[in-house]
């Protein structure tokens, strides 16, 4: 009996140690450390061949499969930051009526369930939410020439896209030539929008006008 009690005590102790010994990684991340910045681009494109850009006047908010165009303080902060860093990269902003070389849009993705951003979901939604008419190319379709990775969504994301409007007529479609994705804690906060967009541009050194 004594032996059994001793062994049971040892087993209980081992179980406690097992659960108590593990260092949970998510408990050791700051908000800044929790964020990831993913950029991808069409490696055949020379970004120095473009001079002007136009940016969307609102943000497409994609919420569990439905989308709305919104412009609150947070959205304005992301649009302003994208404008600032496009200009810092040497591009000149023009209105969307002035045949810009590049189109820039901002999207906010909110999901309360586990979803996926992929070519087959995000871009299906996207195609319907940003009408090519906005950029002056009604009836055109979008095309993404590189493989867009699949990302699990739990809490939301902000994405920026750069579209090739300069060659849309020649290609008969609007190529998506750069995408940037921001994910992690605290990104739906206007005060951090500038630093988040800056991070995307900082890691995209090829994104420069002549």
């Amino acid at each position, binding site marked *: 009996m004594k032996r059994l009690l*001793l062994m049971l005590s040892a087993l209980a102790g081992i179980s406690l140690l097992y659960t108590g010994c*593990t260092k949970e990684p998510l408990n050791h991340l700051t908000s800044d450390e929790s964020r990831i910045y993913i950029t991808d681009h069409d490696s055949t494109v020379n970004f120095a061949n473009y001079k002007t850009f136009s940016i969307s006047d609102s943000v497409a908010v994609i919420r569990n499969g439905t989308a709305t165009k919104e412009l609150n303080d947070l959205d304005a902060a992301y649009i302003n930051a994208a404008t600032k860093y496009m200009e810092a990269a040497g591009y000149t902003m023009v209105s969307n009526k002035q045949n810009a070389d590049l189109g820039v849009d901002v999207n906010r993705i909110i999901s309360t369930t586990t979803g996926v951003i992929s070519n087959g979901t995000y871009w299906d939604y996207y195609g319907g939410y940003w009408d090519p008419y906005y950029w002056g190319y009604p009836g055109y379709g979008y095309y993404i020439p*590189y493989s867009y*990775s699949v990302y699990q969504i739990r809490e939301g994301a902000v994405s920026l896209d750069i579209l090739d409007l300069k060659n849309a007529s020649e290609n008969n479609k609007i190529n998506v030539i750069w995408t940037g994705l921001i994910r992690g804690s605290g990104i739906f906060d206007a005060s951090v929008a500038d630093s988040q967009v800056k991070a995307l541009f900082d*890691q995209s050194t090829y994104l420069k006008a002549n």
Partner: protein
Amino acid sequence: MKTIKIMVAALGLFLISQSATAQKKNLKLDLNYNYSMPVSGFNSDLVRDHSPRGFMAALMYPFNDKLSAGLELGFQDYYQKYPRQLYTIGKSQNVSAVLSNSIQTTPVLLKAKYFPLTTLFLKPYLSVGAGANIVDFKQYLGQFGSGQTNVNFRAQGGLGVLIPFTKVSPSGINIGATYDYAPYNRLGYKDLSTVNIQAGVTINLK
């Protein structure tokens, strides 16, 4: 690997043959705190920090004064956070992230201990063990993680000393060290080998 498997089989057969001829003896329970230091590829590729979060427990059957064998179960938690860095994936994708590795190992080993100098008060010993290493590996980019659990091979060699509570007591304090060879072949990583320092007690189960 083939040689090691043959050695494990030989160890198993030896222990079975010894238990068949041995007289009835009291089992011994080893309970040890384990401090683990990743070495080789484990250290350079996955986790540099030492892990103070571990333990091992073994139920040992003494065949005679010099030789005992049994089953050992352990647990160790490894964690490493690397500063933010830019990772290039394919030819066009860049990911900036703080990368964290979280690895839990649960070795289940057949173990033998040999005490060459039983007449001394301090009883030095050599140990060998081999068996399974259950590995739970999670890797996080920022707060986004993925992981997998699988079973791998593990072999162990060690030495230590048993300090009996009294001159005649079979129980005592145990201090030892092991080298654990732990091959791993997942996600491009090859090795989870460690050097371990242990301290604890050996209890005679009456």
